[in-house]
């Protein structure tokens, strides 16, 4: 799901690479910063505590936080999850990958017809914050509403998969969507256009939150939504702060994933990442019950590491988004696979780590595969063995063999201005220069950057620095959004413009595989197949670091989404 999105953590910096815009599937975050000490989830993680009460403050960089499930790309475990429940959700525990668990539904979905039909049953006795019961029809309405063009912007996995959804324009004008059936108030049946094994995960994306049937027509529904989770929006001050108060209609015994410890959650918007880091490091009384949703930058990491008190309150993910260098396969010499393979050896991944977070440890492990850590079925392999500093001699050799003994010149490397993208790009530029590949940086603000990635332009870039955090912990969400032909342009994130019919067919087959082990093997084979064609150079699995105040409890990061689990966090008096 997500990108971190808008409501959640990811914000600001995610943008560094592919962001989340709506594109079809995905989100990514470039995260540039990251890493902290070795603590993965625990170093700074607080003791587990079940003390309820108090006010938790979340400091976020962006100035809008949208609680409209149709428009959100938020992870299941961030701000949106405090207000809305979904059919399924993620159970995240310290150091463990996210586990798909039932939320509104009683289980994670029952497939039939070979994975083409999925049936969910709602728990009994669920109610909205306005006191009305949550019915299957409300989930259906929420999904239908997400097709309305005015409410676009959310994740679109379901839009591509539901049968008969092409051309459907939402319930306000287009009537009902027949592929979502609600035979009674507690049963909802989805008919898909093709078999899809990960539908249970798709059901944890924001659009699977209920919206009371017939409501949600107003454009600012995201500021005063009807809540199904433990909190409801009490006050919403545009661009400044949001106050979430308890939803008295939510019951703890119906919900396995939300601890709902604080009585009040304040989301304080427009807080610059560096300022947040400084404030939380200083830990003044007002900030002791706060945590930062943005990544701690490399300069701040060094500062925090020299401050023992702050160092204890730094939490770093054990792994995270894949940072990679895209080689635009439609551009000139980059169309030659031998030239692209030379890049695998030319890049100095060690310098990239240092540029990212100061040390290899903080930056995250060197990546050689496309499927990220903590994803079922992932196989670790390295088709292009080279030292961490790269092997420029070998790269030159390959370039010469491909007919470029003089090296390459005039390649444009697209990079987003956000985060420390330009610094990372300069590290790549310097290492490519050693292999005789001259690169010019094309630094763009994040809007222009995504516009270039998401649409095929006549003036294409040659190389792009990008990053990808899968929307849900399945290899499907690693590979399909980046390497399927259908993800080129039109809002997709296939930044290498990689198109291989054999890979497309293999992706479709793997998506249709319902058995998880079998699907894992199929995805690992695709990983290898794509790497053989070398459309991208994997760089690192980026670690993310976050700071919390001294009175924040249960602040940890699981093995898969590289973000803190907001649903578990509490405060002590």
């Amino acid at each position, binding site marked *: 799901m997500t990108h971190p999105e808008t409501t959640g953590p990811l914000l600001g910096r995610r943008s560094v690479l592919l962001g989340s815009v709506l594109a079809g599937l995905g989100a990514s975050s470039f995260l540039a910063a990251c890493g902290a000490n070795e603590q993965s989830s625990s170093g700074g993680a607080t003791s587990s505590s079940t003390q309820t009460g108090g006010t938790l403050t979340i400091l976020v960089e962006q100035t809008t936080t949208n609680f409209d499930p149709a428009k959100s790309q938020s992870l299941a475990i961030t701000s949106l999850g405090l207000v809305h429940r979904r059919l399924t959700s993620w159970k995240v525990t310290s150091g463990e990958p996210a586990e798909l668990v039932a939320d509104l539904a009683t289980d994670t979905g029952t497939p039939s017809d070979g994975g083409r039909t999925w049936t969910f049953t709602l728990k009994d006795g669920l109610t909205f914050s306005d006191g009305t019961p949550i019915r299957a029809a409300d989930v259906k309405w929420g999904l239908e509403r997400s097709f309305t063009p005015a409410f676009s912007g959310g994740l679109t996995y379901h839009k591509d998969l539901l049968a008969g959804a092409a051309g459907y324009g939402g319930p306000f004008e287009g009537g009902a969507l027949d592929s979502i059936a609600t035979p009674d108030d507690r049963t909802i049946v989805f008919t898909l256009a093709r078999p899809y094994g990960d539908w249970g995960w798709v059901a944890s994306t924001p659009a699977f939150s209920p919206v009371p049937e017939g409501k949600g027509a107003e454009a600012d529904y995201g500021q005063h939504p009807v809540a199904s989770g433990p909190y409801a929006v009490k006050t919403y001050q545009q661009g400044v702060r949001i106050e979430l108060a308890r939803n008295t209609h939510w019951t703890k015994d119906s919900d396995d994933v939300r601890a709902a410890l604080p009585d009040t959650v304040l989301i304080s918007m427009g807080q610059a990442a560096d300022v947040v880091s400084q404030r939380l490091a200083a830990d003044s009384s007002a900030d002791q019950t706060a945590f930062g949703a943005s990544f701690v930058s490399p300069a701040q990491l*060094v*500062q925090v590491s020299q401050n023992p008190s702050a160092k204890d309150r730094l939490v770093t993910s054990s792994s995270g988004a894949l940072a990679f260098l895209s080689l635009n396969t439609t551009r000139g010499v980059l169309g030659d696979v031998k030239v692209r393979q030379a890049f695998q050896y030319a890049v*100095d991944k060690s310098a990239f780590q240092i540029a990212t977070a*100061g*040390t*290899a440890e903080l930056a995250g492990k060197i990546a050689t595969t496309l499927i990220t850590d903590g994803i079922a079925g992932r196989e670790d392999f390295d088709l292009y063995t080279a030292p961490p*500093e790269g092997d420029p001699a070998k790269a030159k050799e390959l370039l010469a063999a491909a007919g470029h003994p003089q090296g390459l010149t005039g390649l444009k490397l697209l990079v987003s201005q956000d985060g420390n993208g330009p610094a990372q790009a300069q*590290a790549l530029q310097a290492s490519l220069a050693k292999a005789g590949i001259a690169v010019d940086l*094309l630094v763009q*603000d994040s809007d222009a950057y995504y516009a270039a990635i998401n649409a095929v332009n006549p003036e294409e870039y040659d190389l792009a620095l990008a990053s990808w955090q899968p929307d849900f912990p399945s290899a499907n969400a690693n590979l399909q959004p980046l390497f399927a032909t259908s993800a080129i342009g039109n809002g997709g994130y296939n930044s290498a413009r990689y198109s291989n019919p054999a890979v497309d067919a293999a992706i479709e087959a793997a998506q249709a595989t319902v058995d998880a082990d079998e699907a894992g093997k199929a995805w690992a084979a695709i990983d290898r197949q794509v790497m053989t064609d070398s459309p991208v150079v994997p760089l690192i699995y980026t670690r993310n670091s976050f700071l919390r105040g001294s009175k924040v409890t249960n602040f940890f990061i699981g093995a898969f989404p590289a973000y803190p689990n907001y649903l578990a966090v509490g405060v002590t008096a």
Partner: protein
Amino acid sequence: MTPAAPPPPRTSFGSALVRAVRDDRAATIGALVIAALLLLALLAPVITRITGQDPYTYDASALDPGSGLPQGALGGISGTHWLGVEPLTGRDLFAIVAHGARTSFLIGVLATAVSVVLGVALGASAGYLGGWWDRVVGWVGDVIFGFPYLVFMVALGAVAPPSIPRQVLLIVVIGFFGWPRVARVVRSATLGLARRDFVRAAQAMGSPPWRTITRRLLPNLWGPVVVIATLSIPERIGLEAALSFLGVGVRPPTPSWGRSISDAIGWVQTDPMFLVVPGVALFLATMAFNLLGDGLRDALDPRTARQGAR
């Protein structure tokens, strides 16, 4: 340069400059610093080759593997890295400052040249010809004078196609926004000169305006033009640094003092030398030009040096 005297020949103008600089201690210091920085800029590739460094090569061995900070005291100052290295990259700060001087001087001096050429041409013609041309130049100058040029430049920097070399864009844009100041000074000096006898005599003998301006007026405008040019250079250098600081100056990895200062902000507490080195370079350059310009103005400007001469 007294009102009734003919213009002094150019050679003595040059020696007047030398004398003005020599007689004023602050101006002498300014001139020496400028000469040193100019040498550094011109010889940057040679000097950095002698030290075995360049501003682009990453050197992980100069960094502390535990933090990414420079290894050693004072930002990693050593026999190899004279001014230390950048955190996270290990690039040599001396090489970055030396090559950054090239960027600053190139843009500062050429942008000033653009301003001076435009300003002298428009100011002298407006002052001498008067009438509607004078009013048009005055209006346009006022508009540009009050224009929020920094905002404009940031916007332009963000949308200008990458095919335009950034240095050229900066020179033209920064230079263009500088001409009204030059034009105002030149116009008022021209108005004074145009009333003087040697100009009137030329007019009476039928000299065409073009010839009068180039032969009679311009040689006498050198004083104010040199002063204002010298005082504008540090402003242009500062403007280039400001734009680079804001991320719309020269593109990385081309070194620029402004960008280094911007990069260094986050490191103030952990690696202050990273900020101090480019900061001092920028300070020295702008200070030196200001000292020199002030000295020249005192010596050459009739209002300060020869009060009552008019």
